[in-house]
């Protein structure tokens, strides 16, 4: 068990948003959290990254463990540096007035003296050739799909072992959406552990090994993706028939 979330309660201000979520991720897996708006998927990811209020939820109860060690007292940048987890946030959050290259370079802030930075950037450009073409362009002049590629590329530049993605398909055309998930599968085959939060449940379950269905801050179903995708109860309630 690489990452485990145990009986997590978290919320914003006095409002509790997630009520006792428990799930785990094994090394080398793709795990998806699916569910409707407001189910607590993004809140869970932000809590795992240890982002603090006001942008992120306050932890009320429960524990988040990486390799069996609690990480609740770790600062966000240390989650990236030491624990090698990276987040592709909802809405991309790229640095609009910086160039594509600068966006990627910032992700190497903590290992700025690492001689492999250049090689890693080459790998990102191999993975997303479109970014290579636009490397000197300002990030806010990119199309939505390219911005999403940049957001993923940037997270990979942190040299992460676990990649968390918050709605990577949001605002993408169907073709790009499939391409994005194909890329995720490929990265997973190279050894990356992936946790992906999605509203597009069909697509997510097709890519992931296991899934958790969230509803109003609780896990209501879990299991291997194929099983979830065919479970009549889940289909009826969350996959639209």
């Amino acid at each position: 068990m690489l990452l485990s979330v145990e009986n997590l309660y978290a919320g914003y201000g006095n409002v509790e948003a997630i009520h006792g979520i428990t799930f785990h991720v094994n090394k080398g897996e793709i795990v998806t959290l699916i569910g409707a708006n407001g189910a607590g998927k993004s809140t869970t990811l932000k809590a795992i990254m240890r982002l603090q209020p006001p942008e992120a939820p306050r932890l009320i109860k429960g524990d988040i463990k990486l390799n069996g060690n609690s990480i609740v007292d770790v600062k966000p940048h240390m989650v990236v540096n030491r624990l090698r987890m990276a987040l592709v946030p909802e809405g991309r959050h790229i640095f609009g007035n910086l160039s594509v290259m600068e966006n990627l370079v910032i992700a190497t802030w903590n290992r700025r003296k690492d001689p492999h930075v250049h090689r890693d950037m080459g790998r990102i450009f191999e993975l997303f050739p479109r970014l290579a073409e636009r490397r000197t362009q300002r990030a806010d002049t990119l199309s939505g799909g390219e911005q999403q590629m940049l957001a993923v590329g940037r997270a990979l530049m942190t040299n992460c072992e676990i990649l968390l993605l918050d709605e990577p398909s949001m605002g993408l055309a169907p073709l790009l959406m499939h391409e994005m998930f194909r890329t995720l599968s490929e990265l997973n085959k190279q050894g990356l552990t992936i946790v992906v939060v999605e509203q597009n449940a069909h697509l997510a379950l097709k890519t992931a090994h296991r899934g958790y269905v969230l509803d109003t801050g609780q896990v209501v179903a879990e299991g291997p993706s194929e099983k979830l995708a065919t479970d009549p109860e889940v289909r009826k309630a969350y996959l639209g028939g």
Partner: protein
Amino acid sequence: MKKYTLNILALVVCLLLVVAAQMDMLDQYVLTIIMFIGINIIFASSLNLVNGYMGEFSCGHAGFMCIGAYAASFLSVTLFTNNKILGAALLPPYLAPWLFLFILLVGGIVAALFGLVVALPSFRTRGDYLAIITIAANYIIISLIENIDIIGGPRGLQGMRKVMNAMRHTLDIPWMLIWVIIVTGISLLILYRLVNSTYGKGISAVCQDEVAAKIMSVNTDRVKMVAFMVSSGLAGVAGGLYAHMYGYINPQAFNILKSTEGLVMVYLGGMASLSGSVLAAILFTLLVEALRFAIPAVDGALHAIHVLPDGFELSQVWKWVLIPLILILLMQFRPEGLLGNRELTDVFPRLRRWFTLK
């Protein structure tokens, strides 16, 4: 060789200035303006690090200049001159030229420590609140110094002239001009290297999106602290130069009006643009000096055509009507400033071929 053209040109211009000053070819007034431009360049470009690159709104930059000016002056006066209050010189005056850069550095370090006063609240708050805190810091610093009698309180501190004279006795060259040129050069190089490094890109990242910066491994608290301390430290160094150039300082010379001058220069030049700040510092200093002549001239002309009543005179205080007015007009018609988020090399890409700053 070609790519060093501008570097060599800048060096030659500086050398020519020093030679001209040495041979008394430059009027003392002109010399003062040239030195003042240098000081303003440090003042504006260091403020740009916080207000431009990091996107905070610091309105109390003159406070740190004040700290630096007092720390450096106190040190140099104690070390090298016989003073009624501070006692006899601790070191022989001929050491003054050797230790002057060190004295400026101490002034900068003390100012940088006061920069923490602003950096610490910035971990928790941004925007308007931080702007108010910086104004408060400016007032705190001035009040603090006004109430310390050993450094003159509200009367001010003098004796730095004697230190400069001691340098002249050791070797008769225009020391002050040389110091201003060297220190301005070093300060700009520090800022340039900082904002173009991966570390410095972290500052731009904090400006754009703090949450995104955090999840991209940037230690945002440390980046803010470093930016505030470098910025206030360089302002302190500028203060040290300012104090030794004039030979006299008093706390009210570093009040909110001085901070406003810094803001005008930053916004005139453009946010997050070092070359913009340099350009704006030169233009602004010349403009303020031009007003010194223009206001009496306008006054004379208006009296000559009997527009103004006899008892009413346009005084230099009108400077403080015109300078904020520039800021307002600037915001209205060119909010991005002269260069705005770009460097001169982005506007004239060919410039790149003629210099190197690696």
